């Protein structure tokens, strides 16, 4: 029962936060004045709750685990709640990121009709609450309930604009794959349970599994949660569903919901199953690398901004999986310290991705609101109409491109450092295998940079490609830049990008605490006692990185140069038209399009894609070049499965041919057969 004397504890606190989210969604249902509530009250309140939750989570990281049970749930399995450092970390992630997104949403949804808005507010906060409960859950039943509620509420959010067929099919695919994943997870719990005790996580922890069954449980968990995380080959729903949702929701899904899948993986594999084996790690590495490269390569081919971002979520999940895989390999070979480093890298990247992907989706939302455009090929020059959004988006783009001194770089740097620990491994094959994955990571990083040069350059720089840029937004009627609420939300996330990038060592300590609690081993003391300036994963001799100094120096020298130039040389500037290469009729249509930007990639990685190109014929008055890129997985995985089911059901349908004599015959034979069986 909830008792008041522990009401200060982070567990109660976060429980209250989750409940108050539910309360807010209930509030949105109050028919009287729900216009006011939904428009002005719900989302800001939600943001405050998010901050509170973040605070409790942060507190929980430094405290010892805390448990409680609620008088709800199954008769002999009431809801168990538990907060330990790992859960605390993810609660903090959920709270802090959702706070920014909620503030943004408060401004973003203003222009909706009351009815839709009420519905959105309801589902939005149920979604948040269910994610909180996923993290708080300490028994299989509550976990499954929260998990599926999360899927359900997000599904309804995705299908907000249900009149578009594409969105409907996206939602269907999403919920279907989510449900199949959930079935796998349920089965995994069953396997872990092994037939004794109840289904609390403590019991599952205690259960001892044969190596074979442990591996089975691992596979089920990996693919069950992977389906939610959008790892290949179960990713197909992600690039469909995330763009379909309203932008703040896309931000939630990409930023946070995917991380709950990561949380589930870590919780089940490291905590519940335990006894990590290095073979598992290899599998995770392979799938992770595949996911990463697939994601970024397909992202480069997109011209729908939100779809592109969704593919990048796939990529980043791959990066996180790389970190996890490496840590599993190291732990499996009995090097927990290096393993801890890998886990830290993965978790750090989870946090970073939540922040910058959230930011980017919000930016995309602002573009959508201001111009009504999602197709990059129509955008251009937005930096002039919406400079603030452009600034925040730039930060996000640099962060996701893993450029120093922003946060994306830090986590990839840590992942590289983990890979560089391989000399301690005994198995020489694995030893030479792991750096290869580091190489793929390097490749993916560079490709991401290219992709975001494309996005930023096409969307914000240059000139509008199509003349159909409305001066005033078709949605909000407001021209130019985003409103205050939106900007504030984005600023919050952009600031967190910087903080996470500049003060990594303090977060390192935090994450180290989590690993120590989870795997029993943390980083080396030398790594931990270094000053807050320096990020030192193992020892200062091996590697170190001081983003602050880095930033200071780069700013200093740049300013110095600037001042010198200013000081010694005149600042005379003439403005003129851009140089036209002697070809006077320059139109904005002559700029590179997003598809054109991807062309070298198509050339280099041709075999990866399934392309249908339509070349315009030479004497075409209005030549149009069209390109369709399809996902191969459809053809070797999804469609065959669908066809198989179709085939089986068509065969089974032969049972029922409408002839009553035949039906009687069935009963007759059943009777006879049973009688024979009995004799």
């Amino acid at each position, binding site marked *: 029962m909830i008792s008041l004397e522990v009401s200060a504890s982070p567990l109660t606190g976060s429980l209250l936060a989750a409940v108050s989210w539910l309360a807010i969604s209930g509030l949105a249902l109050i028919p009287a004045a729900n216009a006011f509530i939904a428009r002005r009250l719900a989302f800001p309140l939600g943001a405050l709750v998010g901050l509170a939750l973040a605070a409790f989570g942060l507190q929980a990281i430094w405290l010892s685990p805390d448990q409680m049970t609620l008088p709800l749930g199954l008769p002999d399995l009431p809801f168990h709640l538990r907060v330990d450092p790992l859960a605390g970390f993810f609660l903090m992630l959920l709270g802090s990121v959702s706070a920014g997104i909620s503030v943004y949403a408060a401004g973003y949804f203003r222009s909706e009709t009351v009815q839709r808005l009420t519905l959105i507010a309801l589902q939005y906060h149920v979604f948040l609450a269910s994610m909180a409960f996923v993290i708080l859950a300490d028994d299989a039943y509550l976990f499954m309930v929260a998990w*599926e509620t999360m899927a359900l509420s997000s599904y309804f959010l995705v299908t907000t604009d249900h*009149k578009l067929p594409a969105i409907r099919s996206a939602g269907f695919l999403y919920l279907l794959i989510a449900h199949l994943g959930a079935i796998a997870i349920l089965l995994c719990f069953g396997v872990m349970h092994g037939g004794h005790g109840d289904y609390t996580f403590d019991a599952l922890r205690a259960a001892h599994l044969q190596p074979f069954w442990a591996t089975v449980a691992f596979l089920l968990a990996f693919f069950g949660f992977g389906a939610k995380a959008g790892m290949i080959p179960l990713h197909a729903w992600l690039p469909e569903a995330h763009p379909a949702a309203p932008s703040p929701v896309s931000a939630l899904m990409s930023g946070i919901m995917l991380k709950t899948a990561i949380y589930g993986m870590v919780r089940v594999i490291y905590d519940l199953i335990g006894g990590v084996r290095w073979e598992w790690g290899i599998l995770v590495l392979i799938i992770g690398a595949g996911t990463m490269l697939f994601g970024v390569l397909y992202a480069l081919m997109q011209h729908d901004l939100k779809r592109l971002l969704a593919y990048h979520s796939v990529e980043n999940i791959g990066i996180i999986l790389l970190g996890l895989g490496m840590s599993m390999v190291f732990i499996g070979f009995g090097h927990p310290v290096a393993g801890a480093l890998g886990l830290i890298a993965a978790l750090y990247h989870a946090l970073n991705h939540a922040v910058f992907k959230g930011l980017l989706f919000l930016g995309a939302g602002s573009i959508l609101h201001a111009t009504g455009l999602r197709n990059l090929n129509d955008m251009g020059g937005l930096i002039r109409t919406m400079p603030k959004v452009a600034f925040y988006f730039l930060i996000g783009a640099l962060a996701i491109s893993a450029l120093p001194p922003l946060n994306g770089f830090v986590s990839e740097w840590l992942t590289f450092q983990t890979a560089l620990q391989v000399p301690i491994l005994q198995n020489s094959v694995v030893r030479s295998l792991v750096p290869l994955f580091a190489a793929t990571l390097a490749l993916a990083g560079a490709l991401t940079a290219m992709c975001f040069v494309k996005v930023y350059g096409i969307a914000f720089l240059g000139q509008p490609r199509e003349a159909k840029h409305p001066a005033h937004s078709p949605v909000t009627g407001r021209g130019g830049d985003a409103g205050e609420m939106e900007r504030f939300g984005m600023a919050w996330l952009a600031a967190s990008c910087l903080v996470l990038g500049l003060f990594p060592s303090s977060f390192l300590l935090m994450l180290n605490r989590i690993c120590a609690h989870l795997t029993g081993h943390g980083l080396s003391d030398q790594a931990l006692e270094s000053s807050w300036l320096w990020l030192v994963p193992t020892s200062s001799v091996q590697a170190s990185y001081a983003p602050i100094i880095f930033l200071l120096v780069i700013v200093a020298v740049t300013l110095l140069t600037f001042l010198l130039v200013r000081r010694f040389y005149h600042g005379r500037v003439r403005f003129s038209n851009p140089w036209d290469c002697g070809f006077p009729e320059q139109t904005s249509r002559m700029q590179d399009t997003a598809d054109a930007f991807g062309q070298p990639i198509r050339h280099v990685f041709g075999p990866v894609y399934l392309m249908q190109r339509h070349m315009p014929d030479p004497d075409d008055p209005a030549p149009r070049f069209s390109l369709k890129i399809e996902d191969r997985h459809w053809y070797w995985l999804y469609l065959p499965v669908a066809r198989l089911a179709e085939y089986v059901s068509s065969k089974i349908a032969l049972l029922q041919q409408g002839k009553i004599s035949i039906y009687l015959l069935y*009963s007759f034979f059943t009777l006879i057969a049973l009688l024979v069986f009995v004799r």
Partner: protein
Amino acid sequence: MEITLVLGIPLLGGLLLALVGHRRWAPELNSAMSLLTFGAAALLTGRVIAGGPMMAMGEQFFVDSFNVFLVALTAFVAFTTSLFSRRYMRIEEHHERVNSHRLRLYHSMYQLFSFTMVLCLLANNVGILWVALEGATLSTVLLVSLYRTPASLEAAWKYFILCSVGIAQALFGTILLYFAAEKVLGPGGTSLLWTHLYEVRHQLEPTVLSLAFVFLLVGFGTKVGLVPLHNWLPDAHAEGPTPVSAVLSGLLLNVALYAVVRSKVLVDGALGRNFSGGLLMGFGLLSVVVAAFFLSRQKDIKRMFAYSSIEHMGIMTFAFGMGGPVAAFAGLLHMTVHSLTKSAIFFTVGHASQSTGTQIMDQIRGLIVQSPTIGWGLAVGSLAILGMPPFGVFTSEFMMLTTAMHEHSWATPFLLIALGVAFAAIFGKVQPMVFGETTAHRLPHPPALIPVFVHLAIVLMLGLYIPPYLVAWYRQAAALIG
């Protein structure tokens, strides 16, 4: 006393409505009678909770923790359905699909049907149970053909023939049972009473009982809709008026399953569990898998949900077949949540097909636009029946699956695959009906949706919190079933 009330009121109602069923206020009378029945059932439940099992009319009727909650459930669903049928039938009348004569038939038969249901549940005498179950067929068969369309006639005919033949097998089973019991209890009335049979069930002749169980299983199983005896079910559900489909799915199947379980317990006493349990699990699994694959081919919405009923009956049968406290608990819980959810779904489906003027799913679109309540009811109901948390169906399925995983792990892959296929099928068809550009029109009378949301609310509650007394109740029943 209460037992007499519970049995008497619907019977009276049936006779009454046979006279006045065509009047303007007949629907209200119908609901009123159902309400009274429900009240009586509630009283009865209270008595049983307070005073434990009881007998009536010279041991011919009895109540124990197993059937009392089914009585309560039956009376409740019958009541809510009558509320729904009030509006529904008015609209049908407005669309001129039924005239006053048929309404009279309908109302009177509705009451008689609920009478046979409670009779079935309360009967202590296997013979009377049989009679009541056959009576249920007789009272509903004319309702299935109420619209007199070729399809409805065909459906009714199949329903009648298949169920009567099936039930005839059950009678033979009963005779064999009597034949065996007579040896122990001697001739005369007592040797067909459940209560007495239980006491001597370990002395009954195994070979006879195994034969008897086969006949009973085939007989009652036909009514439960176990594959391959299920063929009447989709037709009957699809062609009858929707309230009838609702009570067929929500009540009749439950009651038939109740009969099967009763006889199972008896046979277990004589032969040990794994004989009957094995049979039940086999039938259950077969039904789940086959029904799941049937689902994806459906065009008619009511037909689809009829198949889903078969699937869920299979799940319950499987659970009871596994036996043991947890599985039996799960089975009972699933009985409850399924009948609530499924009837709620049929309510919304009924109004949906009225507002679009068709039962063909491809022509039902965008319900949520025309009438949000119908749309949301259908969407939420379907997700609930598909075993989505936090609804109660998931609760029972969770308990059932987790038990199956370590007691009969071979079966779980089939069950899970079937569940997955069913999800894809039903959800893939429901979503476009709920969303998108609408094809629906306003209804002449406001739809009756309070029952829908009451049912769904209860199911939701059962998913998150099962009241203690309910738990105790299920536990006793589960102990009884073993």
